[in-house]
């Protein structure tokens, strides 16, 4: 049904978006927690940095990534020297680009949900001997789960559709970094390839819908578990 190229792009896309989500989920939750429940110097700065990838055109983010994480970049050169790791032109690099672009969406959604958790319950947990950390893990985070799920979907979808930063930082290498959006872009730029473009478009949409359905199902389960009275009104 799918051509080999399509399969390849699909597979890379899933791998890249999945990895992107995996690498940002813990830091994302952590940063969201910091922003939601703590006051510290530099908070506004952190908040700003988190939002950067959202407000800059993706190509610019990709370029900045190249500046920082490229082989001559501050972090990139260190990575290369210390571990022999070079991220540009690799699918890991594409995942990084996707993760960076998706990060603010994840943080925002999680933060929103964390802020909505009733501090009364956290207080009750404290009196039961739970440390701040245990309260966070056992009370705050589970109650914010809908936000984590929403944030996760947004992030996954964003990483899945990421184009500008990816192509700039990780290039468009077939079999390595050519994700669905990159493949789609190539076809759309070629006269007469509208059919192939439509197919790729359909595949992207299908993947996104699937992830959506899964997330809805997860979210519904969480909610149903807690649902009591007054939910059907």
């Amino acid at each position, binding site marked *: 049904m799918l051509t080999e190229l399509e399969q390849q792009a699909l597979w890379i896309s899933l791998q890249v978006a999945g990895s992107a989500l995996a690498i940002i989920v813990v830091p994302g939750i952590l940063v969201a927690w910091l922003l939601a429940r703590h006051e510290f110097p530099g908070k506004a700065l952190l908040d700003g940095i988190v939002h950067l990838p959202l407000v800059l055109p993706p190509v610019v983010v990709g370029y900045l990534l190249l500046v920082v994480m490229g082989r*001559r970049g501050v972090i990139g050169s260190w990575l290369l020297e210390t571990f022999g790791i070079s991220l540009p032109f690799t699918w890991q690099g594409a995942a990084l680009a996707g993760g960076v672009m998706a990060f603010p969406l994840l943080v925002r959604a999680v933060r929103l949900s964390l802020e909505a958790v009733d501090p009364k319950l956290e207080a009750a947990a404290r009196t039961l001997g739970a440390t701040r950390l245990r309260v966070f893990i056992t009370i705050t985070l589970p109650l914010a789960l809908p936000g984590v799920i929403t944030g996760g979907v947004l992030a996954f979808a964003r990483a899945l559709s990421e184009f500008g930063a990816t*192509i*700039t930082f990780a290039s468009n290498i077939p079999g390595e970094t050519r994700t669905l959006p990159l493949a789609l872009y*190539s076809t759309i730029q070629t*006269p007469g390839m509208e059919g192939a473009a439509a197919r790729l478009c359909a595949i992207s949409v299908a993947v996104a819908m699937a992830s959506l359905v899964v997330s809805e199902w997860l979210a519904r389960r969480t909610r149903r578990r807690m649902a009591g009275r007054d939910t059907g009104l």
Partner: protein
Amino acid sequence: ADSVDVYAAASLTDVMNALVEQYEENHDVDLVPVYASSSTLARQIGEGAPADVYLSANVKWMDWLQDQGGVVVSQRHNLLRNRLALIAPDDTDIPSFTPDAEHPLVDYLEDGERVSVGDPAHVPAGIYAKQAFESTGQWQTLEPRLARGSDVRAALALVERGETPLGVVYATDAQASDGVKQLGLFPADSHDPIIYPAALIGEHPGDAAGAFLDWLSSDAARETFEQYGFEMAND
């Protein structure tokens, strides 16, 4: 004053900005340059974008536009030529050479290093690069070692940043960038001629648009084009 919408390929951005300024000094006309990739511009014009003049970075998209019903393309002619250049970061150790069949590029690549090009699937500069590699018999070896950018500029950036030791861009790009060194020009016969066609768009193109298009072939314009590294096509 009349206003003329000039849709120009993104690779013409800097030279066109200079030309617009130059032209507006002596003419009572309001030039509006619109930059995007040739393909985007072609599709937009196809959808009725208010273009008066279209400058494409390759022949293909001008052809495509002419094939579309509903858009009238007139006074089409080849305006400019460009050359394909091999570049390296400006601190490179590689001496200048001509990238022909005698000098396969793999010889200059370490393990894992790549050559950055525009995506040969659709970026015009990439397509020319592919042709050049094919005609010099190194496409098979180089294909898996390409770093494909979304446009020429991306390919250039990768070299500027030292991500790749080599890159293939237009000679004009190589000239404009401070961060790269031009190692050599691909032989002109190793790929299709790099031609920038220009044309008037619309059923009733205004006089001002026609005048501007004519002026682009004038000596005054030629000087500026050449200053930016272009050659006039003159046909």
